[in-house]
């Protein structure tokens, strides 16, 4: 699980172009949206594509994303349970 969290942080920084941010700047429980990393709606769509591309998870209900993308912890837990690759 720790390796997956690290991988997620690296992918989030790279895919979402979070310049000048390192994995050490993202806490496992930090809010990804709102007051946390300040991600926006396009970032949310990028995260949905990332789940599909990297882990074979297709989110069909956008409401699901609200909980899954709360933090790196919630993402890692969901991916561990649902990944197909």
């Amino acid at each position, binding site marked *: 699980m720790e390796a997956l969290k690290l991988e997620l942080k690296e992918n989030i920084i790279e895919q*979402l*172009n*979070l*310049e000048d941010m390192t994995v050490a700047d993202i806490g496992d429980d930090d809010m990804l949206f709102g007051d946390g990393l*300040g991600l926006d709606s*396009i*970032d949310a*769509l990028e995260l949905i*594509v990332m789940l599909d*591309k990297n882990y074979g998870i297709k989110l069909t209900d956008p409401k699901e994303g609200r909980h899954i993308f709360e933090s790196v912890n919630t993402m890692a837990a969901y991916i561990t349970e649902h990944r197909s690759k």
Partner: protein
Amino acid sequence: MTSNYHITSHCHIKNQTVSLNGVEVFHDDSELFPDFIKHVYKAFETKYPKFFKMDNLSKLAFLAADIILKNENLDTQKEQNIAIVFSNKAASLDTDRLHQEAIQNSSNYFPSPAVFVYTLPNICIGEISIKYKLFSENSFFIFDTLNAEHLASYSNSLLDMKKADKVLCGWVDFDENHYEAFLYLVAKNGKTAHSKEHITTLYNT
């Protein structure tokens, strides 16, 4: 063509160099655009994290506009009545290609939403408008080369009809590491008359 308006400032970004009002204010040896524009961003202390999410055309337009508008000492908390009239040759072709690469293989079909949103050239106007709270008129024209006559007459019309107090206009083009931004601000007062001839002269110097 005579005009009651003036060019108050102009910025040119090309060949690894940034000029403001005809004076070179930044030069960098980076040959690749992403490196060069990142150095420009840092040199001018723009401090706008969303900059790194923009496509190449938007980064180029955003910084050229930012360099001009910073010089105007605008209150960024207040809405500004500044119209934007841009033009270029390649539209959003650079980003269009990126998107096309992502969708051409049906077995590896993962188009990026963050790329797709930039597959229109006028998105760069939106980026500038958000930063500087510009909610006025805007247009983006496609020409083979800088069309000074059209830009001048269109901008003058906006000012004549009181659609805006000022107009930020010019040329911003990006395609395959070839880049050029030539933006200028038109207002009632200033030293250089806003005319086709002066626009062309400033562009060519």
